[in-house]
């Protein structure tokens, strides 16, 4: 049996195949304007990798904001439950999952292997991947480039909570001739502050793991650890935590 987890987020669509014991395949596609089209491309890609989604030996759970567009899924589950499952599997213990996604940030507590509570950001993109993407764009780089710049900078405080206002704040910093790396450091710090505030509001009484697109950046993770005064772990499959949780749920439900 193969268990497929598909996590269609606002920016990236993550797919992962679990054979009941281990992860056997994983890939990421950008989310296009149509989640339905993204789902169709995932199906095709799986087929190219020799996984036939329509076969009775393959069970699929879809998650993420585009979950309802995956019409071939056997079950849909919210990204909160999936990230909880995935994070628990990656750390092999109860934990707090900090997921910084494209359009929202979630803090999830897992106790005895199940999600017990969660907190999400307001309907606002500050403190999410989207914020970093927009600001990186302003500095004519991408998110990875932004982190590289930030490592060598001294943060200039970005005080605006709103993405649109923060963008104008950055434009004025650029206009004032501040160093690009200092502005970059300020941008990252502003996201760290938002994420840390949400985590502290939720309460981080357990081991913490960072998941989502930013979990691969050791700089981001270190800054977050520093701010929280608590070690934040990551995992090479951190990006796939939601998809992994979905595949694990498929295995639980359909084995």
């Amino acid at each position, binding site marked *: 049996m193969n268990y497929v987890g598909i996590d269609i987020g606002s920016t990236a669509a993550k797919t992962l195949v679990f054979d009941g014991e281990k992860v056997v395949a994983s890939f990421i596609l950008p989310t296009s304007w149509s989640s339905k089209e993204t789902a169709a491309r995932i199906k095709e890609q799986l087929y190219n990798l020799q996984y036939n989604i329509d076969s009775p030996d393959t069970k699929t759970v879809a998650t993420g904001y585009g979950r309802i567009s995956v019409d071939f899924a056997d079950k849909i589950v919210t990204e909160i439950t999936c990230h909880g499952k995935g994070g628990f599997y990656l750390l092999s213990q109860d934990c707090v999952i900090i997921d910084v996604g494209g359009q929202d940030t979630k803090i999830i507590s897992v106790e005895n292997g199940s999600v*017990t509570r969660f907190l999400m950001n307001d309907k606002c993109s500050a403190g999410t991947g989207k914020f970093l993407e927009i600001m990186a764009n302003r500095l004519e780089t991408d998110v990875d480039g932004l982190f590289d710049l930030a490592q060598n900078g001294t943060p200039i405080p970005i005080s605006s909570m709103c993405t649109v206002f923060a963008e104008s704040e950055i434009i004025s910093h650029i206009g004032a001739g501040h160093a690009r790396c200092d502005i970059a450091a300020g941008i990252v710090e502003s996201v760290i502050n938002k994420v840390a505030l949400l985590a502290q509001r939720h309460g981080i009484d357990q081991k913490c793991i960072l998941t989502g697109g930013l979990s691969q950046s050791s700089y981001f993770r270190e800054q977050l650890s520093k701010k929280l005064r608590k070690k934040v772990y990551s995992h090479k499959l951190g990006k796939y935590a939601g998809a992994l949780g979905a595949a694990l749920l498929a295995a639980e439900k359909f084995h």
Partner: protein
Amino acid sequence: MLNLPENFQNYSEARQQGFLRLKELKESGKKVVGIFCTYTPTELILAAGAVPVGLCGVSDEPIPFAEKHLPKNLCPLIKSSYGFAISDTCPYFYFSDMILAETTCDGKKKMYELMGEIKYTHVMQLPQGRSGNLALESWYSEMLRLRDVLNQQLGVEITDDDLRKAIHLKNRERKAMLDYFEIGKLKPTPISGYEISTVIDTNSFIFDTEEKISILEKRTAQLRQDYEEKFKGKPSRPRILITGCPTGGVREKIIRQIEELGADIVGFENCCGPRAQKDMVDENKDPYLALAEKYLRINCSVMSPNPGRIEAMAEMIDEYQVDGVIEVILQACHTFAIESYRIKKFVTEEKHLPFLSLETDYSQADTGQINTRISAFLEILAT
């Protein structure tokens, strides 16, 4: 599928039907008093021979009109209510001879100052808490002042006898509402939270209290029968208690959604629920003092401190066999937003139940996010 009564009218249908009834009443010479809150002593309005009508805005349509005068970052209920008044798009406001309001939250009391420029508005000075030395005394004198204002504005003479009759009638209505709410204690529940929320809000558009009582009693009997015939012994869906701000304006987005996603709302620990109905007005006292005492006991977050809310919640969680609590906070409602921390601690640490707090407004902008949060909460309840 929700178990709704035959010929069930949704909020906008019922609201529309009420227009004609009110117009007829007005033409027959009846006076109308527009009201906003459970703190309003409607007994005095009835004793004055007038009818009270609820004017709380539950639609986002008039909000742009309100935002010409009011700040954007304000409670949607306040903006919606004011928006209806200033845009002259609410027949109930139009038909009201006067407005009766109270100094409850900061947003409302300051809005009423502006509303007073559109129509005569009497604002009762509600104490900020019930423990102060003069709290009851001042609220009692506000009752007497209201009597004088109503006498003058409506050209009547309220007698103690009229007031006693009105108190008795309202107590009967309270009892009928309470019996209706308590259907939610049955497990599995035959009543939906969507129905409770709609019926309680649209009740305000029926102007004959006897008729209201009879409708509620009939429906309660029907629901008891439904329970015996169709529900008893069947498995129950997760049972949710709603708490926080008034939920009339998020009825579709939150209340209905919770039930469509697979849970039952069995009770409301907010002003749409039994909070104000459980507590009767003492019929054996000076009627003005009895009214002052009763209305000061309402446990809204505008009161400081407000321990009654926790007590009411503890009782409801047990009696309604609740599995999880969902709190609704309307944008910029400071008093409920601040109490949220204590409510969360109480529900999770003392009652050991899952708790979800949703902050929202009347727009549809966050429908997707709300949906994800509710779904995830129900997934927690299912494990």
